């Protein structure tokens, strides 16, 4: 599982400039820098502390590290998301589809409580909530964990596209009013990227076995 987090960290590092550029267009141009700083700290933490087999314990470390290193809006939101996911995954050493869905639900609830946003306000929720729906749909059709994740990733990607068509009413981009139209949301983008990285990591493991 540490490797999965590392895959997430890598995709953030690779897209540091991209996320920053997106944020420069409709925010303050630091999303990539903030996220990269956070996952840099996460990587250091996980490589120095003995990696816990317990998924919950590990995600808690990730969440707390993000909270204390990312700052801005994304820090408390993603930090809370990982903390809540950690609680849902406590005591587990491996993931099944149902647990994964619960963790995603807990993460989203955390983000909504902390940020008081709902779907359609041009935030990370516009990637994450569709992702949750798609994952749940896949699971109800008895699809595999990775297939569900693939559906989630694609839904998140569509959500990112959708953010281009709406006006931001939460976060820094809301100051722009109509001028936020046409731009994709940086937080939705980072959410999509993380799901994509998780999927790619899962597929690579599966092939390897």
């Amino acid at each position, binding site marked *: 599982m540490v490797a999965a987090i590392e895959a997430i960290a890598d995709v953030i590092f690779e897209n540091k400039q991209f996320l*920053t550029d997106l944020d*420069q267009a409709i*925010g*303050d*141009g*630091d999303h990539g*820098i*903030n996220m990269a*700083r956070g996952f840099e700290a996460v990587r250091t933490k996980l490589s120095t502390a003995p990696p816990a087999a317990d998924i919950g314990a590990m995600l808690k470390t990730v969440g707390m590290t993000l*909270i*204390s*290193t*990312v*700052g*801005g*809006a*994304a*820090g*408390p*939101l993603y930090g809370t998301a990982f903390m809540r996911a950690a609680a849902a995954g406590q005591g587990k050493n491996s993931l099944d589809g149902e647990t994964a869905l619960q963790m995603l639900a807990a993460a989203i609830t955390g983000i909504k409580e*902390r*940020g008081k946003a709902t779907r359609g306000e041009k935030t990370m929720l516009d990637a994450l909530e569709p992702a949750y729906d798609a994952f749940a749909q896949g699971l109800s059709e008895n699809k595999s964990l990775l297939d569900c994740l693939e559906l989630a990733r694609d839904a998140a990607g569509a959500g990112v596209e959708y953010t281009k068509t709406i*006006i931001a*009413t*939460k*976060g*820094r981009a*809301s*100051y*722009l*009013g109509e*001028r936020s139209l046409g731009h994709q949301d940086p937080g939705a983008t980072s959410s999509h990227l993380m799901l994509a990285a998780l999927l790619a990591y899962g597929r690579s493991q599966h092939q390897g076995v």
Partner: protein
Amino acid sequence: MKKVLNVPDQVVEEMLQGAVAAHPQYVRRVEGFDVLVRANSPVKGKVGLVSGGGSGHEPSHAGFVGRGMLDGAVAGAVFTSPTPDQVYEAVKAVNGGKGVLLVIKNYTGDVMNFEMAAEMAGADNIAVEKVVVNDDVAVENSTWTTGRRGIAGTVFVHKIAGAKAETGAELAEVKRVAEKVIANVRSMGMALAPCTVPAAGKPSFVLAEDEMEIGMGIHGEPGTHRESIRTADEITEHLLNKVLGDMTLAKGDEVAVMVNGLGATPLMELYVVNRKVAEMLGGKGLKTVKTFIGNYMTSLEMAGFSVTVLKLDAELKELLLAPADTPALVQF
């Protein structure tokens, strides 16, 4: 990017070291954190005042730590709200037993991070209250936005709530006064040229050689619109009319004014602006009790300025004029 820098990633750390070296009579570092508190913190029997936010707005906020103003300031990464653990350390370091007031500029990230810190301090049974400053009239305060931004008017909150806390007032009283300032202060800014966040390495926006941005935010957030540069008087008139348009002021009312430089605009130009501000306020029969002019809430090396007007009553006036002794604001 032309800057006097060592490692971009270390700029906040090095700035804090330089600030402590410059002002040991005023501030000390909370060991291991990006937090400066008064050299004699915690002040027993006094409500503690903590503010902070992303770095790059110097002298805000650490420059206002000292007698009559803040007790502690938390420095985030450049233009990025500090994290909850940092704010929490500041709260602990300044709590003199009467609780702590958090002065937050209204940005989603700042509000969330400071709120999380308040929850952490609450778990320690430290009484914590917060106020959120939202003086920037460039942003509409509607359900369609996260609300007006907090900009230079924040310094008036520091000054007046700080003076109130210095009297030994209770937390609720200090909070009430802070909220009264927030209710009565409005600002608006403009930019002629952008700034560069060291870690980003390139300007946060681009303006043509003859262009300016009206309503610019202090993190480079876009304003209300762009247009060709006009005269100082025209620009000032536009900004001040927007500011006054959002306030209820009558002939004979007393106000305080801040003409704030964003970093690269020389004092000469700020004085030219203030000439027009004074003329307009005088023309409306308003009495300016005090004018602050200079770099108070900056945006790295952005060129531009903001104008702030605070409506005073007897209480706010007395607290505004009370003594202060901090690195960036001293008055007898």
